[in-house]
């Protein structure tokens, strides 16, 4: 393939994206997508952006982070504060830019010392970072302390949301498929070996972390203008874990998987809404069932490519997998072969 910007592959993706945009726009205009489904769709889009950006840190680079909601809150608060005096799209973009700069700076300061840690230690350090950001916001005047900022103007629309979903997934995919991304993947596979191959591991880890934080802050700004109210506890550890669930559920290392997981979880959450408190139990059960049958996540590490999208085999295999999942093939095979239940 010739390495130009507008090659056949990129053009096809662009056309697919634009077609998808106009399809949804048409459905909104005709009234098939009602205001309620639009709210759900925005939730899915927001968490797809967050999932993809965290996947760059966790799935691609292999650095476990529990502080993602903290960077989201930086973006949300920057946008909300600017929107207070400039309640229009210009204000939103200025807020986003400020939020992006702050979160780039904070993530860099945080990443340089903490990314020297590994595994559990890194998880705890990033958890601490998320909490520090939350507590700073809780005690600042401009963020209005514990009661947060309410009455944020509602500026979100499908074109705006689509633009940011498209751009953040595109940049994440480019990040993953670039030389930087390959360096990051090698760090995930074996840090010592990649260092021996001359890769500056700290540099690439910091880059991935900053990139993820930047995208998360954009998602935070969109969150603020979609949901009217932001409070410090909105961006606590629970939210970080929600994003982590999307990454693990979709498959660590698969950006497509994160987007698919956001869609699946968004739909589960809404289909079972009339069941009130039972919903959370079903939601948790669904997670457990998927994790038993597909411990590698929905898509594992594979990505959607043009080849797979236009190949019938993909859909055949997906259907077969779904049937196996519903009919509990794994247990049947395990039970038949040993009689002792499942083995791993």
């Amino acid at each position, binding site marked *: 393939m010739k390495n130009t910007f507008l090659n056949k592959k990129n053009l096809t993706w662009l056309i697919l994206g634009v077609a998808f945009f106009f399809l949804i726009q048409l459905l909104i205009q005709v009234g098939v997508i*009602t*205001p*309620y489904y639009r*709210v*759900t769709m925005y*939730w899915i889009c927001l968490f797809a952006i967050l999932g993809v950006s965290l996947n760059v840190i966790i799935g691609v680079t292999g650095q476990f982070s529990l502080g993602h909601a903290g960077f989201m809150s930086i973006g949300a608060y920057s946008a909300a504060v600017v929107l207070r005096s400039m309640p229009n799209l210009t204000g939103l973009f200025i807020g986003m830019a400020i939020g992006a700069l702050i979160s780039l700076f904070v993530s860099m300061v945080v990443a340089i010392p903490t990314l020297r840690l590994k595994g559990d230690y890194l998880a705890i350090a990033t958890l601490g970072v998320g909490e520090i950001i939350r507590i700073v916001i*809780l005690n600042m005047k401009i963020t209005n*302390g*514990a*009661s*947060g900022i*309410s*009455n944020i103007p*509602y500026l979100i629309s499908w074109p705006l949301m689509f633009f940011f979903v498209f751009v953040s997934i595109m940049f994440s995919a480019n990040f993953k498929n670039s030389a930087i991304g390959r360096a990051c993947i090698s760090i995930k596979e074996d840090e010592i070996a990649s260092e021996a191959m001359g890769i500056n591991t700290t540099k690439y880890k910091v880059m991935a972390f900053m990139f993820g934080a930047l995208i998360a802050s954009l998602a935070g700004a969109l*969150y603020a203008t*979609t*949901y*009217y*109210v*932001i*409070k410090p506890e*909105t961006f606590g550890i629970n939210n970080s874990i929600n994003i982590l669930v999307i990454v693990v559920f979709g498959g660590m290392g698969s950006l497509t998987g994160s987007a698919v997981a956001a869609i699946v979880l968004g739909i589960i959450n*809404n*289909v*079972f*809404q*009339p*069941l*009130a*408190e*039972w*919903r*959370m139990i*079903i939601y948790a*059960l*669904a997670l457990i*069932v998927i994790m*038993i049958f597909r411990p590698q996540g929905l898509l594992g590490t594979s990505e959607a490519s043009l080849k797979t999208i236009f190949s019938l085999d993909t859909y055949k295999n997906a259907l077969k997998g779904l049937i196996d999942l*519903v009919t*509990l093939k794994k*247990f049947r095979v395990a*039970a038949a072969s040993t009689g002792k*239940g*499942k083995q791993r």
Partner: protein
Amino acid sequence: MKRILVLVATALLVLSGLTACTSTDKGTIKIGVNVELTGEAAVYGQPEKKAIELAVKEINDAGGILGKQVEAIYYDTKTDGAESTSNVTKLATEDKVVAIIGAAISGTTMAAAPVANQYQVPMITPSGSNAKVTNDGTTVYPFVYRACFIDPFQGVVIANFSSTELGATKAAVIGSSSSDYAKDLATIFADQFEKNGGTVVAEEYYTDTDTDFNAILTKLQNAGEFDVLFIADYAVRAGLIIGQARTAGITVPIVGPDGFESPDLVALAGGADKVNDVYFSTHFSALSEDQAVKDFIAAYTASAGEAPSALSALAYDTVYMLKQAIEDADSTDPVKVNTALEAIKDFKGITGTINFDEWHNPIKSAIIVELVNGEQASATVVNP
């Protein structure tokens, strides 16, 4: 065994999806309920749901509203603002309810208020007491109301009670610096107490994670004599402070806001003997002689299996207030119901008589409860 379990789980998933799709009759009045059933505020949302179920059952047994049966649709906010926004959008646009009750706390109510305004469906929160729930300080949200009094009002009531009933002239204030509820109450109490001619000798603050308050209490004692102690916080910490203050030899009356009301207060204070001469303001007291209150307590205890709290009483009142508004409007059109709700006059509920002011806050009386040996001993009604 595992296989059966998973089969059951799958069957449950499929079945629950099916039941979600069953349609409802045309001849009912639909009311949306959007409260905290899970998450950290579920402790407030659950009693409200039980009270709403009771009120709806009573209304339906008595013939419904305008001859139609009432159907309540319950959604869970998960104590999450985004979820609350989404729920109210669904109630207003998909379920096409006449009115919405919820949410139980201020944060999730504020997240849903713009949606209720946008789709023009009246929404009443039973217990969102933050001043900014029904207005942004300059304009009122035309479709958002509440059934409880607001935090500033409570601060004023407690200060007046301390000055007149307790005859206090010197107050000490202690409160949490982590919640706006506590910070606002402490400031408003201090202002009103000084307006009444008293002096505030000391103000001390702590953070939500503290459990040992001896250092702060010693500071208060060293700051000079005081004859009333105001604790601005919820029962979780207020209970501990009461216990530690009594142990430290502070014998003056202790006053506090509605956050004191909790079955755990006595246990946290370390024994019933520590909880004497303690007063707090609340929305509703089980000690009332009113027959309607007695009937409510009996009915609620029978149906819910526990004694009602102020929250359940407020939610119960909210349903009946809505009933009156629909009857006044003689229509199930949300906009007409909203007009009737705004104009509601002297609605007699079990938490007092309700009229709305121009900010959609109820003008209603508060109740000051005295605790003797940890038990509610007397209830004084304080009118605004």
